């Protein structure tokens, strides 16, 4: 039999010390080992050992939350790789993007990153829609819903900050238009209601050089300062906060009774 040596080889492998040092349980074909497979694995132990059957149903969950998380991972990996070729300065940003297209090996990384980002925004929305439609924000999950809303905002911000980085006309003006709204923040933006009241004599305290938009852009218009600021926010600031919130989110999913279902 041709399979005989194969089988025995596999068996041998299974008996080896190396194998056993890694997998501390037998083949996951019985309940105990199947539980252990999840419990003893650092990546899998995010999950409980058991879930409701409804939580397994695509029709029910749409797999939107998982997809979002997966896309977050994709964005992290591709983003990390892109940082090797991208310099967030006004002189180089644009041409570095051009180079990603014209000469960098596997410059397709940028496409994956960008489309992944769009997909992630969509996935978050669908996730929210699903959670709402199944009423899963209701007690005891109110707090987790709130975390989710924050994560939605962060996802949009991640996408928005990343939008500037190619430093082309599309990017710059999208961000100019987007960030212009900040200048209308009541009291904090120089064209916001109430800003005109913040005045000592002739000296206005809120003007284009110190308002909310200025803080966002590090300047009166979208320039090198804004590029650097958005880069740091995009690569470090927001992902960090998002990662923390995600951890809380996942943890709360389990603590609040697992993937939701009728109580």
């Amino acid at each position, binding site marked *: 039999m041709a399979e005989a040596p194969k089988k025995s080889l596999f068996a041998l492998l299974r008996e080896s010390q190396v194998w056993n040092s890694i997998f501390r349980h037998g083949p996951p074909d019985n309940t105990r080992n199947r539980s252990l497979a999840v419990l003893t694995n650092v990546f899998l132990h995010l999950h409980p050992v058991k879930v409701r059957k409804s939580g397994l149903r695509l029709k029910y969950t749409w797999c939107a939350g998982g997809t979002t998380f997966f896309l977050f991972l994709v964005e992290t990996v591709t983003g990390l790789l892109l940082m090797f070729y991208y310099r967030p300065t006004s*002189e180089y940003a644009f*041409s570095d993007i051009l*180079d990603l297209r*014209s*000469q960098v090996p596997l410059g*397709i990384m940028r496409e994956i990153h960008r489309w992944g980002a769009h997909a992630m925004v969509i996935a978050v929305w669908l996730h929210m829609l699903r959670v709402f439609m199944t009423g899963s924000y209701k007690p005891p999950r109110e707090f987790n819903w709130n975390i989710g809303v924050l994560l939605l905002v962060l996802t949009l911000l991640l996408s928005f900050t990343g939008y500037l980085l190619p430093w082309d006309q599309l990017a710059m003006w999208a961000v100019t238009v987007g960030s212009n709204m900040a200048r209308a923040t009541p009291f904090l933006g120089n064209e916001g209601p109430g800003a005109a009241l913040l005045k000592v004599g002739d000296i206005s305290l809120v003007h284009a050089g110190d308002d909310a938009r200025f803080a966002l852009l590090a300047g009166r218009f979208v320039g090198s300062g804004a590029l650097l600021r958005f880069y740091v926010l995009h690569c470090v600031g927001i992902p960090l906060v998002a990662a923390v919130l995600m951890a809380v989110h996942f943890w709360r999913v389990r603590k609040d009774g697992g993937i939701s279902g009728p109580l």
Partner: protein
Amino acid sequence: MPAKNEEYARSLPLLNKVFAWSSLGLLAGTVWMVWDDYYRPWKRVQREFHALTAKKTETAIQQAEQAVDQNALKQIQEDLKAAQAQADQRKREHDALREKLDRADVLVFTTDTHYKNTKSIYDATRFEYEELSHQNSARAAEQQEKLRKVESLLAEYKLANEKALATQAELKKQEEAILGAEKVLEKKRADLFAGVERLQKKLAAVEPQGFLMKSFEVMRNAPLVDFMAPSLKIQQVVPNGQNKDINFLTIPRVDRCQTCHLGTDQTGYENDPQPFTTHPRQELFLAGKSPHPVDKMGCTICHRGLDRATDFFDAAHWPDSSEQQAKWTKTYDWAPKAHESSPMLPKRFVEASCLACHSGVVHISGAAKWNKGRDLVERVGCYGCHKMRGFEGLRKAGPPLTRLIWKTSPDWAAKWVENPVAFRPATWMPRFFGLANNSSPEEVARTREEIRGIVAYLFEKPEPGGFPRLPGKGDPGKGEKLITSVGCLGCHAIARLEKTPPTLRRRFGPNLDGIGSKAKPEWIYAWVKEPKNYFPETRMPNLRLTDQEALDITAYLTTLKAPEGWEPGEAAPNPPLLDRLVEQQLRARMTAEEVQAKMASFSEHDKEVYLGQRMITRYGCFGCHLIRGFETTPPIGTELSEEGSKEVDRFDFGYVKIPETRHDWITQKLENPRIFDQGKVKTSDEKLKMPLFNFTPEEREMVVTVVLSFVKEKPPLSSTYLLDARHKALEAGRRLVQEHNCQGCHLLEGEGQEIRATIARKMVEEEGIGEEDADSRAVAFSPPFITGEGARVRSDWLFHFLKGPTPIRPWLAARMPTFGFTDEEADTLLRYFTALSESPFPFETPPPQPFPPGEMAAAKTLTSKDYFNCFSCHQQGAKKPEGDPSGWAPDLALANSRLRPDWIVDWIKDPQKLYPGTKMPTFFDPASFDTSGPDDVLGGDENLQIKALRDYLLTLGSARMGS
């Protein structure tokens, strides 16, 4: 365990199947991605180029092999055999030598080692001594002693080493004597095949031979491993400092064009198709020694397009013609690239790039199309309506209209304004009426009324004065002769006399057709006598005509009548229409009541004058003409100083279906300036008003090139063409040369002497010789070449000559006119000519005095009849040569005051070199200079003879040289 827990929610085999299929999909996707990333179009292009080069190299190898001198090879091989045999014979001797040499090598090594060791000890000891003595240590003296010892030891070892080296060298020399011949021959043989070998290496590089090398070639370019030593590589140039300027940003340029355009800087691909073609004019572009080497300038600085692109589409190629576009669409799927503000310039407009770096010059050498375009722009006076950088402060392009009645009649003017081309097909005056947006019957009625107004305004209150009646009668036949000979045709063309279209320089002055129907004879007479009386700023010079000559010319010019069927005349007045138009104009500026009051106060004539004034404002006539009341009105057109950088979406293409590019829009605008009104509803005041210029398609292309060259982007100072003192002098001079059309008559800097064609034509007609021969004959009978004028004549003479010319060349019928140069202008021209010939300004060295004995006598002999017989042709003051003046030559009595001494020497040595085609024969054959002079004068020394001639000539005329 309860069985319930063993439940599986899904069918594992199904999941496995899904897993298998999706993994296969993932694998396929990943591989596809890698391949997609790897397979770039430029790699195919590079492979093609390698194949092409291989083919060429193979042919070259064959040729080189055939070129190898077989006889020489045979000889070398035989010699080599002999040399080997000889070396074999002396083998024993050589062996012994070898042994000695080995020993010598050992000795060299040991002595050298000793020396080096001792040297290090010496350095260390010296350091210690210095240290100790610095510390005033007691041990310093002791150390010094030690140092001295080491020093002597060092000297000893050095000596020994030198000796050993000398021995070694001597032995090597001996060995050379035995083996040398063989080596030399080997080298000779290698040299014979050097060319072939070099080519073979090249071939191996582009087309590896043999299975091993071929597989290696595949390997090194394979996906994922192609980072090690690929032969297909992106070629890029990072031009220093040639950044792209975008507002506050400077993006470094990285030109990757040569990734595909591989043959550009190599010769031998001239006839190959793109992208491999050799760049034309290597002496100017790309080559290392040219002013624009590719590794410093790159490509996109001139051609534009996206510098970093490695793909046909991304690079923003732009087709030069619709055929090319069709071809590109087929081969490359070409389509206009959106979001590219600087796509490549179509080839025909590429000279538009020159100006950015070569700003502030009149002409850019090598950019013929741009130069001509610039001349055209100046000629037709685009700057009158459009502000453009570089055209500031120029005279208005057209004549003044402040004293029009002196010259012509309102009837003529009205008809002329309506359609200048109908009267004079080759005029520069553009056409405002009867164009795309104003030729409907109502429009024509309206515009005729407008013209009535304009004419009424122009003839209203002219400057007082006028010209007296003609003093006599002229002969048109003589007039024609004069016109064709005194030089009028250097600047003017007369259709009746032309066989081929006149060149641009010969269209410098107005075309004279129909002048007899246009101008009053009194005016013509006064004008040709002294143009500045009528038009102080005119460029028309004074030809110093006698009264009779002027009368003859007047008589001839009055015979030049308007084309058949052309009649002067104003349109009949149309008071209701006039009222409406005037009201319309007034209404835009005042209330209805005010309008009524105003209308009531106007007489019919007042209304016309008012309408005329409004229309002159609207059409901007004052851009080109001086018009009373509009002396300081600013121009009406859009500024064009940065037109070449204007965003394409800021051009209004209206409903005209043309490709949306700058050059297509500008071309269209020149071709049919009102077309963009097509399909739009506009009031008469809103309509486009740019007039139609009388350009041929080629001329239009030239003008577009110039307009495209007005860009916002400024290249860095380091790559700008900066003018040094000499070039500043040249530029200032060129501007004057340009303004006075010197090149219409003279050949200057390789261009001009366009009057020659008319002289040749005359020769053909009058002497009956063939056209080609006439042209080369005409060289000598045309105004002279003056490129070398700065080296030829004395500055002070030239100054006075320019201010008031006197005849120099008796055989020329054409006269140097009096331009009325100011001192500054004459000075500028002087500096220009001296800068052009790199001659000293303004002084020149007089030859040393006194002359050597016998020199004058020798010179006199040389000039005598039996020798060079100079005065057979040359005038000498009042002494005229025999025969017709057409065979005469310049007055040698002028040499003293006119010519530079050094130039005379050069001139006598080889006149043809300084002035190809001159009538002055070569007396001293440059090919056999030392034997070309007479043997019996000054000992047959040609240089002395020439010097003697010069010195003699300088004593002729006035006593400037000192008697």
